[in-house]
């Protein structure tokens, strides 16, 4: 940050400017930095699970490969595509906000919500199948073949990781809904769209988590 970038006196008072900031630039910089720092905490949050996954996959490679084959790769691939689509629409929503197209913002945000919901529906279908096949860890877990206890570990990670991911999706969809409402009330302008931008960052982050989860869980070995 260059010396003296902050102005010693209060700048023009913009309606969107919070009292603790001097100008909109500073406010925007703070909100963007805050969001990125938050995403770093999210990386570490998922990181604990990824570490555990790495440890056990290293310890029980055969069991993990075997258990992974029980996942529906087609559904997983479709969901990956759905989520990538939603990231595109989210990026376009942010772009619309940047150039001040309110209709575009509302349309793309709604589309993103729709795709996110579609992802969750597919995920729900997969969960139902796993439940039906007794692949949910716990008392009812049943797994034919030689790798039973370690396959249960795999499914513990499957549910913990995809569950945490799905929880992030649900929260994301909630935020998107709020943004649609705010946007329709004309809350955002090319000067002030940090909420849309930050939600975009969050949404793309959730997408990235899935980009790693998909091959790690579904594609260990399909030969």
């Amino acid at each position, binding site marked *: 940050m260059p010396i003296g970038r902050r102005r010693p006196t209060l700048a023009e008072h913009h309606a969107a400017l919070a009292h603790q900031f001097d100008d909109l630039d500073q406010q925007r910089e703070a909100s963007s930095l805050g969001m990125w720092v938050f995403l770093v905490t999210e990386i570490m949050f998922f990181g604990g699970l990824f570490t555990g996954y790495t440890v056990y996959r290293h*310890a*029980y*490679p*055969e*069991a993990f490969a075997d258990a992974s084959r029980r996942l529906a790769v087609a559904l997983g691939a479709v969901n990956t595509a759905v989520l990538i689509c939603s990231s595109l629409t989210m990026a376009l929503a942010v772009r619309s906000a940047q150039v001040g197209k309110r209709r575009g913002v509302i349309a793309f945000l709604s589309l993103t919500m729709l795709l996110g919901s579609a992802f969750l529906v597919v995920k729900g279908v997969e969960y139902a199948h796993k439940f039906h096949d007794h692949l949910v860890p716990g008392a009812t877990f049943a797994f034919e073949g*030689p*790798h039973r*206890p*370690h396959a249960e570990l795999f499914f513990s990670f499957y549910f913990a990781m995809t569950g945490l991911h799905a929880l992030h999706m649900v929260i994301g969809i909630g935020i998107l809904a709020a943004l649609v409402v705010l946007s329709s009330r004309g809350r955002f302008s090319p000067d002030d769209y940090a909420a849309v931008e930050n939600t975009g960052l969050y949404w793309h982050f959730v997408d990235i988590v899935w980009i790693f989860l998909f091959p790690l869980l579904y594609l260990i070995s399909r030969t």
Partner: protein
Amino acid sequence: MRLGFPLFPEQASTVAGQVDALYFFLVAVSVFFSVLIFVLLIYFAVKYRRRSDAEWPRPIVGDLRLELLWTLIPLGITMVMFIWGASLYVTMFRPPAEALEISVIGKQWMWKFQHPGGQREINALHVPTGRPVKLTMTSEDVIHSFFVPAFRTKMDVLPGRYTTTWFEATKIGQYHSFCAEYCGTQHAGMIGQVVVLPPAQYEKWLAGGGPAESPTVTGAKLFQTLGCGACHRADTKARGPSLDNLFGTRVRMRDGTTVIADEGYLRESILSPNARIVAGYQPVMPTFRGQIGEEGIFQIIAYIKSLVREERAKVR
């Protein structure tokens, strides 16, 4: 002057003196630096005390040479500590080849020991002087830690795996053993005794407990009753790999990796036979989890160890 209470633990093993030597080195370094800092603090505080409220001393920026000095000297000293500590640790970690092997099972809230001749003890452990003793330990429930302060020996005891530690007692007497890892309600009650005897008396003690069956013999019987021999045979039609001369060798697995056939591997093969499959075999062995306790596993392993012929054992 004699105080009514100890300020320093007894030295009753071969490593105790070595650990204490390193400890005293650390104490000396610590005392030196503490005294240095304390003296400087007090000296400056007195010498440069404020004499008038209008006193504003001239500033000093800093000094690169000093900064380097007090970065590099501590760095050098700590590296000495590291190397000394690590090399001694390796000694303490690696049991000598001809050690007396005693199996230890920790459970809430007691220690169970079994000597190579089959003698069992609870919470008390009799060992001879002048002979290394290797403890192979596991837990039936939570994490414990076997700690004998007089030997400067401690190692966590975990469920589901073997850990080892060793010591060679040098001084006859009775010493405390503690559980050092918090293990539940009666954690503080897991205090035991290590009784160090002269070798002759140790032999006498071993003989005095009545007839005992060695773990190797019990293990052979278990091997029979559980039907292990039906598959683990030395002939070509065997469905499982032969166990003759297996212990201590390197085994090639189906996925190309190799594993040393140590106690841990044998234990895993009994309880989770399909975690690792030996090259050339199929995952057909059932698990013996629940059919055999930690003690039984120790005994079967003792039996498998006994299948190593002498000349091979020497080659290793």
